[in-house]
């Protein structure tokens, strides 16, 4: 091909599809690298933006973990007795065992555990700190207790109350205590927390959009002359927009990564205290961190917010192509 200007060859005007695809990939690859370079050349500004984004993104993520962990916690508590049936003190342990066996056949009852008088006394001695006073007693004053484990899925509040009433109506029963109410309340709180995650998430997503929109706006201002020249030499609006969108994506992703690190750090810092607390309550509960899915969602959402934020900024500040 000659180097003669004006001699536009047919071959160049209509590049083959593969050539075009390669050029397109080349361009995008180059933009990805250029925008990353650009961010690395201004480390302070980049870190500050990413830090702001990270805090905004970490908050809903952490709240989500609080909800997840509370749920897990109630899950383990639901396995503890929902109803404690205190038997009449006159009922013998043998009779109590027979009753327990019968109750196990009832609908909704998963398991029945018998707490003998001696066990009850031992537990009371251990937890109440009144060991000395107990030693003064001639005989064990405690009744036999049947701890009923219910199937949480099938048992609503009403069903549990009915069951409690039936148990109290038994000739051997003295009184029954329903423990489930506070679990229901806790679940209500968790539900509220879940809504709060969404609300807070939406508010902070808007904050992320504003932050990224603003940094992109500044970037557009800084590169005004470059944009004008690109415009004059025949760059399409999509081409002019592209580096800013990638820049937004990078910043969002960086903020997301930093947010992820913050959450991981927070979880690992809390793991010790939570473990000690769980040991005090005699459970093997351990704090659940971000799983792969949540992490992916966090990073993808951050990058998407970055692109959206810069898209909004670019749309507002890049309308210079239209001739007047």
């Amino acid at each position, binding site marked *: 091909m000659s*180097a*003669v*200007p*004006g*001699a*536009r060859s047919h071959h*160049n005007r209509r*590049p083959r599809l593969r*050539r*075009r695809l*390669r*050029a*397109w990939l*080349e*361009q995008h690859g180059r933009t990805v690298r250029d925008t990353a370079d650009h961010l690395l050349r201004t480390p302070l500004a980049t870190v500050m933006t990413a830090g702001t984004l990270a805090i905004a993104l970490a908050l809903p993520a952490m709240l989500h973990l609080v909800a997840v962990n509370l749920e897990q916690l109630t899950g383990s508590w639901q396995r503890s007795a929902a109803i404690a049936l205190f038997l009449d003190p006159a009922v013998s342990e043998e009779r109590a065992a027979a009753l327990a066996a019968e109750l196990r056949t009832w609908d909704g009852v998963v398991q029945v555990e018998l707490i003998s008088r001696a066990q009850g006394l031992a537990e009371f001695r251990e937890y109440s700190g009144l060991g000395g006073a107990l030693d003064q007693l001639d005989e064990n004053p405690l009744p036999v207790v049947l701890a009923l484990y219910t199937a949480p899925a099938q048992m609503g509040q009403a069903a549990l109350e009915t069951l409690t009433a039936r148990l109290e109506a038994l000739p051997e029963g003295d009184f029954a205590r329903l423990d489930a109410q506070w679990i229901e309340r806790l679940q209500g709180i968790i539900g509220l927390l879940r809504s709060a995650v969404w609300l807070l998430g939406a508010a902070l997503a808007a904050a992320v959009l504003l932050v990224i929109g603003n940094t992109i706006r500044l970037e557009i201002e800084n590169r005004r*002359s*470059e944009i*004008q*020249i*690109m*415009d*004059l*030499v*025949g*760059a*399409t*609006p999509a*081409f002019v927009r592209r580096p800013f969108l990638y820049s937004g994506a990078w910043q969002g992703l960086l903020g997301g990564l930093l947010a992820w690190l913050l959450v991981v750090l927070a979880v690992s810092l809390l793991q010790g205290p939570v473990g000690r607390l769980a040991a005090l309550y005699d459970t093997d509960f351990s704090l659940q961190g971000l799983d792969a899915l949540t992490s992916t969602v966090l990073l993808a959402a951050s990058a998407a917010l970055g692109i959206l934020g810069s898209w909004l900024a670019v749309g507002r500040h890049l309308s210079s*192509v*239209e*001739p*007047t």
Partner: protein
Amino acid sequence: MIEFEHVTKRYPERGDALKDLSLRLEPGEMAFLTGHSGAGKSTLLKLIGLIERPTRGQVRVNGRDLVRLPRRRIPYHRREIGMIFQDHCLLGDRTVFDNVALPLVAAGQPRREIGRRVRAALDQVGLLQLERARPLALSSGEQQRVGIARAIVGRPPVILADEPTGNLDPELSREIFHLFERLHQVGVSLLIATHDQDRVARMPYRLLRLHQGRLVADSGRW
């Protein structure tokens, strides 16, 4: 190649920059546009590059009706027009090579093609050895040649230049005009706005003189 039919361009703040102007430039023609500043030279060039649209009248470039050209086609129109500015409009933070490559990058050319064409354009303006330099390190004559290389790198059939020698001494100006003549010889259409009337009057090319937005003199085709 370039046709103006009864074109008027009115700016709300300063009135008519062009008044009922008609003009026709043949393919491969080279013409100079002269007149005092404010006579409408820049406006005329801007209408060809679709940087601005006429208030009234028809502008056609290469058979294309610019009045009806939709916005999304404008970038493709500009790729067929090389524009040269008095203040070069180069990017100071890019190398000469990158500056010249801009139109090809914007047009989505593959990298190998870009390298080849940029070097061909730099060779034509005699700056091949400076491709790694930054524009700010160059003399203003060299900077203007970089601007010309960028205008011709996409091999556009039309080249517009707005006061390309405005900041240059006579010696450098002659070099630049010599470059334009070489482009003319290979078939490019050129329209060059200049206030350097004495020089262009001695050259064997068409002269168009604007005064207060009207075409007051046309030396006709050579």
